[in-house]
């Protein structure tokens, strides 16, 4: 048995095996995370609102999201009559690509990483723009006015917030002198970057809330205005893919924030991967906390906030960082 495995490994090459195993791991993490996060979200929402939240299915309602996903799988796959079929079908699949790709470069631990690419952060930033695109074609293809408006909003919002997101990461790249996420995490062995770059951290966090379309920036799916935004016409499995992607994106932005600002997997006593998850979920909790506290901003306010406050401030921050580092 062992021999065959070693043989296979030798034939295909170690790197390939590592990648494949890693991808399978990523898939499991994605699914588990989404299920876990939906449960957490509902539970957190419940307790913030002084109620219990899911409870009756499984212990503490832990099986609730599981049951829900099984239900979603069992639902009829409705395709509305007027949709542009190729686009309509493509969107949920496409939204899953960046989710899977970005997981490849996230260092869960010094060792636990599918592949350390030396342009790691570029990979994440490059592929995360695909999310917008899939929202766009989903909204366009649904032939529904609400979806379309939701999609347009989403695009404008993403253009606006991608810039401060990038600009707030640049100082860290300056300081760590690398694009690789593992190098950046390693560079924080002593002091976390959040100490040097609190403003960048804040900007990054705000921008990433906007990028993941969470309250207070959840305009593309603003329930009271646009019914369900871009996924109004999606049902069953396809809808669940959007759903899954949303929760995974939450995890990803938190993970990046942790890697860049909060020392990644560094931490005393406990193994790195545990620290990583603790930090990440703490940030996710803050995201949830935001959602259940704040109202939604208006569209023009949203754009103004990015263009008039976040971008200038992050530019300034970048300038100051560059100046201090080099002079």
């Amino acid at each position, binding site marked *: 048995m062992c021999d065959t495995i070693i043989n296979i490994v030798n034939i295909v090459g170690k790197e390939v095996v590592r990648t494949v195993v890693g991808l399978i791991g990523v898939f499991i993490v994605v699914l588990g995370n989404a299920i876990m996060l939906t449960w957490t979200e509902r539970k957190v929402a419940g307790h913030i609102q002084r109620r*219990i939240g899911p409870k009756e299915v499984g212990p503490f309602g832990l099986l609730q999201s599981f049951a829900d996903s099984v239900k979603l799988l069992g639902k009829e796959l409705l395709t509305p009559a007027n949709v542009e079929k190729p686009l309509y079908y493509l969107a949920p699949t496409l939204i899953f690509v960046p989710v899977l790709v970005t997981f490849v470069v996230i260092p869960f631990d010094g060792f636990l990483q599918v592949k350390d690419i030396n342009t790691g952060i570029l990979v994440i930033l490059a592929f995360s723009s695909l999310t917008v695109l899939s929202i766009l074609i989903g909204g366009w293809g649904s032939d529904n006015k609400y979806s379309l408006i939701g999609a347009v909003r989403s695009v404008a919002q993403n253009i606006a917030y991608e810039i401060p997101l990038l600009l707030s990461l640049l100082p860290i790249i300056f300081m760590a002198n690398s694009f690789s996420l593992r190098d950046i995490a390693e560079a924080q062995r002593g002091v976390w970057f959040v100490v040097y770059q609190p403003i960048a951290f804040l900007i990054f966090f705000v921008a990433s809330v906007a990028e993941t379309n969470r309250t207070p920036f959840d305009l593309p799916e603003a329930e009271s205005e646009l019914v369900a935004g871009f996924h109004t016409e999606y049902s069953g499995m396809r809808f669940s893919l959007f759903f899954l992607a949303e929760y995974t994106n939450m995890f990803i932005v938190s993970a990046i924030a942790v890697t860049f600002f909060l020392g990644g997997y560094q931490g005393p006593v406990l193994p790195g991967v545990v620290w990583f998850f603790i930090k990440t979920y703490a940030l996710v909790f803050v995201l949830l906390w935001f959602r259940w*506290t704040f109202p939604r901003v208006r569209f023009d306010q949203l754009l103004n906030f990015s263009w008039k406050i976040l971008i200038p401030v992050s530019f300034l921050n970048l300038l100051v960082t560059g100046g201090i580092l080099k002079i």
Partner: protein
Amino acid sequence: MRVIADIVKGAYSLIVGMGVTIRAFFSPVVTCQYPRETVNISPRFRSHTKLVGDPENPDRTKCIVCGMCERNCPSHSIKKVEGEKKEGEKKKTATSYILDFTTCSQCGMCVESCPVDALEFSDDYNPVGSKREDFHYDLVKEYEKRKKTI
């Protein structure tokens, strides 16, 4: 300068709001877990009506089939109030009293108009059914059922 002050003030207000919610997060829940425990329901709660038994003769209800409730009901939910005069009794005894609960508006008009106080609101606060006809209660039969359990 004012812009910065505004931003700081705004951020502070957001933090205050978050403080409120986090305090709620850690305070005890107010949920009453319904099927396992129930809320205290006021004894005055109005559900559908029931007939009250005659304290002197538990076999019959207080209803004397005068038809007041039937006439006074705003939505004609009370149908077929019929009765017969039994031997040795002064008043009529109800044999059928059909309440169509699906059109009732729980106003209490029937209870109020009953001259002999034969009607009372029941405690059935959570009726469900899978047919419309489930809620065409025959109050006389209900009374007899209830009588047996007592």
